């Protein structure tokens, strides 16, 4: 490592490094600039927070063929890809069946089974051109029929797929005329007529009822893997008929125990694949077991290393740790229709007590990124930078007094028992609010109980997972009346501005609208945000080509073992 006194780093570098770590400028750009400013490669990489691995970035190693990658991850049932509800299931299946679009490690939607796509001006008609020459593992050609059959299945309510909400723009909700036990009309959602159009064997056109600029990103989500056109006729069981377009085939499968994938016998459309075999081993839910498995070389990598295990992982000499900042976060959200949170001043008072950077340090140490209470992450392409929020107890007390709580405020937040960072976030927030006279009682409950009431509780801490685009989160969580609008926030100005933003497919063009939307949410103090979480993936040093994906996806086609 270079001696800082001998080779002092250029003063501009630390700030640039922070931008690179947050994804504002590309890593390559940063490394190029750093080199121009006189930093050595080792210094530049260490500024990025990445230990330079010998022989990886500098000298391009020749990948070796062969080997078995052992991964510790929960092995879950994957008999119906349409109803995947855990990211682990997506990982298990993604080696065999593939999506049209794949979100890469930089959170960008890239062509996969779809070669390219265009959208009409009004973003309601999308044409996807499918890759030619792709073969299923049973010899059939991949084409439009497979895509249409898969989508048709997703969009029928009997399947029970989350894709019916993901691709809601292709659906119609009608009143069945019947009433449920509370007298409310029973509605039925199904695919709109003419939503799917086959242009030719390798072109599919989607006709949406409302503009949706995030259609490619939605196609990259883990429940959107394309199955064979005869999936239903052959019994709708992926385990019994694991026909896929991917680089691997299913060899062995036992739920809760292990899953073995072997390299595809035929030709794979995506070029060279180095691994002979991938083995998923289920070690239960105790993170200590995974660390022990690493130590006795029973696994090469795991699904995820939690932030609490980072210190332990770093102490093991045979491991590398990969980190990516994501749009995963947890929000302490208010129900803006219930006392005392219906008064904006109360919400703003609580917001004013928070030191976001300190919150990040308390929860994630040197990792993660500070949040800004508007739920758009620096890794989102349309992120707009706003003036930083500052902790201001005088302002908090003044707002409280104006709202009629000069003598202090007592509230209660609902929080899940595990994972522990969520409780810690609540505790930290409570500590920060104390000097302003706000007493937050933390009501800890098991996960199942929280999810029974996450949309109704007046003040709750909710974990939100990563989504590639900021507008996706806004449409899911803050648009008036949507199912996941847990805060009951309803602002017509916000909604119409969101509609406008939704017409602009270029993130640059969207940024100005996002700046306004972000500011509205921030000013209305709908929630206090804990931080932008990093995800960590640990792997044995012999594994090459691995990285921590923002949504913890497993892309092993170019992974090899040294």
């Amino acid at each position: 490592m270079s001696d800082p006194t001998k080779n002092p780093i250029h003063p501009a570098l630390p700030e640039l490094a922070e931008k690179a770590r947050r994804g504002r400028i590309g890593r390559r750009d940063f490394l190029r600039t750093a080199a121009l400013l006189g930093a050595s490669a080792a210094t530049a990489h260490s500024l990025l927070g990445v230990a330079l691995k010998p022989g990886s970035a500098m000298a391009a190693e020749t990948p070796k063929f062969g080997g078995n990658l052992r991964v510790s991850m929960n092995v879950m049932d994957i008999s119906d890809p349409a109803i995947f509800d855990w990211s682990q299931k997506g990982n298990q299946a993604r080696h065999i069946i593939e999506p049209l679009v794949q979100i890469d490690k930089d959170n960008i939607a890239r062509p996969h089974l779809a070669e390219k796509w265009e959208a009409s001006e009004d973003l309601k008609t999308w044409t996807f051109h499918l890759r030619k020459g792709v073969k299923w593992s049973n010899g059939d050609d991949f084409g439009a029929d497979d895509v249409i059959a898969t989508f048709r299945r997703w969009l029928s309510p009997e399947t029970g797929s989350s894709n019916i909400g993901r691709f809601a723009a292709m659906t119609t909700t009608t009143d069945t005329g019947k009433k449920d036990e509370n007298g409310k009309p029973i509605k039925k959602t199904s695919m709109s007529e003419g939503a799917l159009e086959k242009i030719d064997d390798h072109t599919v056109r989607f006709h949406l009822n409302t503009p949706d600029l995030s259609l490619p990103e939605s196609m990259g989500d883990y429940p959107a893997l394309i199955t064979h056109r005869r999936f239903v006729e052959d019994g709708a069981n992926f385990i019994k008929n694991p026909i896929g377009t991917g680089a691997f085939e299913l060899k062995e499968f036992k739920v809760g125990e292990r899953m073995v994938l072997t390299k595809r016998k035929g030709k794979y459309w995506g070029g060279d694949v180095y691994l002979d075999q991938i083995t998923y081993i289920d070690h239960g839910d105790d993170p200590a077991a995974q660390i022990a498995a690493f130590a006795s070389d029973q696994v090469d990598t795991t699904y995820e290393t939690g932030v609490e295990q980072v210190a332990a992982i770093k102490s093991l000499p045979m491991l590398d740790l990969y980190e990516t900042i994501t749009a995963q976060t947890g929000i302490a959200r208010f129900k803006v229709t219930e006392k005392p949170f219906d008064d904006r001043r109360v919400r703003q008072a609580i917001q004013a007590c928070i030191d976001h950077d300190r919150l990040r340090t308390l929860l994630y140490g040197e990792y993660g990124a500070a949040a800004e209470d508007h739920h758009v992450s620096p890794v989102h392409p349309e992120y707009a930078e706003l003036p930083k929020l500052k902790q201001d107890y005088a302002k908090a007390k003044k707002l409280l007094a104006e709202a009629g709580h000069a003598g202090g405020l007592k509230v209660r937040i609902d929080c899940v028992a595990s994972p522990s960072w969520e409780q810690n976030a609540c505790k930290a927030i409570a500590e920060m609010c104390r000097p302003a006279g706000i007493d937050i009682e933390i009501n800890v409950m098991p996960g199942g109980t929280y999810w029974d009431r996450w949309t109704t509780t007046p003040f709750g801490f909710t974990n939100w997972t990563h989504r590639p685009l900021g507008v996706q989160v806004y449409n899911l969580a803050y648009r008036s009346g949507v199912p996941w609008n847990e805060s009951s926030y309803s602002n017509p100005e916000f909604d119409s501005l969101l509609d406008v933003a939704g017409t602009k497919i270029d993130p640059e063009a969207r940024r100005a609208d996002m700046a306004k939307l972000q500011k509205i949410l921030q000013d209305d103090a709908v929630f206090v945000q804990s931080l932008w979480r990093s995800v960590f993936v640990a792997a044995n040093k012999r594994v090459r080509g691995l990285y921590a994906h923002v949504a913890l996806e497993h892309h092993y086609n170019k992974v090899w073992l040294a």
Partner: protein
Amino acid sequence: MLSFIFRRLALTAATMLAVSLLVFLLLELNPGSVAVKVLGPYSSEEQRQLWLEANGYLNPLWQRYLEWLGRMVTGDFGESIRFKVPVAEVLWPRLWNTAILAFWTFAVLIPLSLTLGVLAGMREGSRLDRAISITSIITTSIPEFASAVFLSAIFVFGLGILPGTSAMSNGFDPLQLILPVMVLVLYDVGYVTRMTRASMAEVMTAPYIRTAVLKGIPFPRVILRHGLRNALIPPFTVIMLQINWLLSGVVVVEFFFAYKGFGALLLEASLNQDIYLIQACAMVAVFVAVTTQTLADIGYTYLNPRIRLQ
């Protein structure tokens, strides 16, 4: 004896019935929450209603309970939400794994603790006795999760001679059994040893022992021929009751070493709201608990002719 067994069987059945009612009420009282557990928190109201109707949850409570009971009795435990296979497919292999763990734990524990207990109790207050007693108390005081970490730190991280997890993913591997058994034995040996020691010490104060010694019989023969049979009666009961602990109390060890056993299964089922699996595991646990108690009582009568079963 026969009437005793029949009465005990009836008691077992009654206990299980009561527990089944309790379990059913706790988990299936509110059909809405069952739907949420099965379909997940992101399911829509519409999907839940469809599922509830399809699975008979809109019937009255007593009807649902009787149907559920009928299925339980015939061995149809329902389908596991987490594993998406019939519960029986997951339950019996896991139970078998715990049985293997229990067997080897007993294989080490019983000879070890009985020997130590006898050695400690035959001369109460001796240096050997004190050494064994103190060691027993120390090892019993260390909880399994602590000793699991210590032993793992020594053998896996430090010396690197034992595997860190016991998932047995490549088929049965005896090496992977060593650490879990070690932890369990370490935890329980103290308790059984001290029970044996207490019993032995009491026997040694009996007049017939004194007579045997005064008759000039060599001390080892006194122990083995005259003292042991009576001293081992209470430990037998204790050991039988340890079976219960080895079924579900080993959850910490199974979880830590990722050993695919019954305790870990129940824990995973609970954490993941897998209600059919929870119900089945609860019934199995109750059955084992009541059965081992019955067996302990019957065995005790055989060993100790002075006890009459009423």
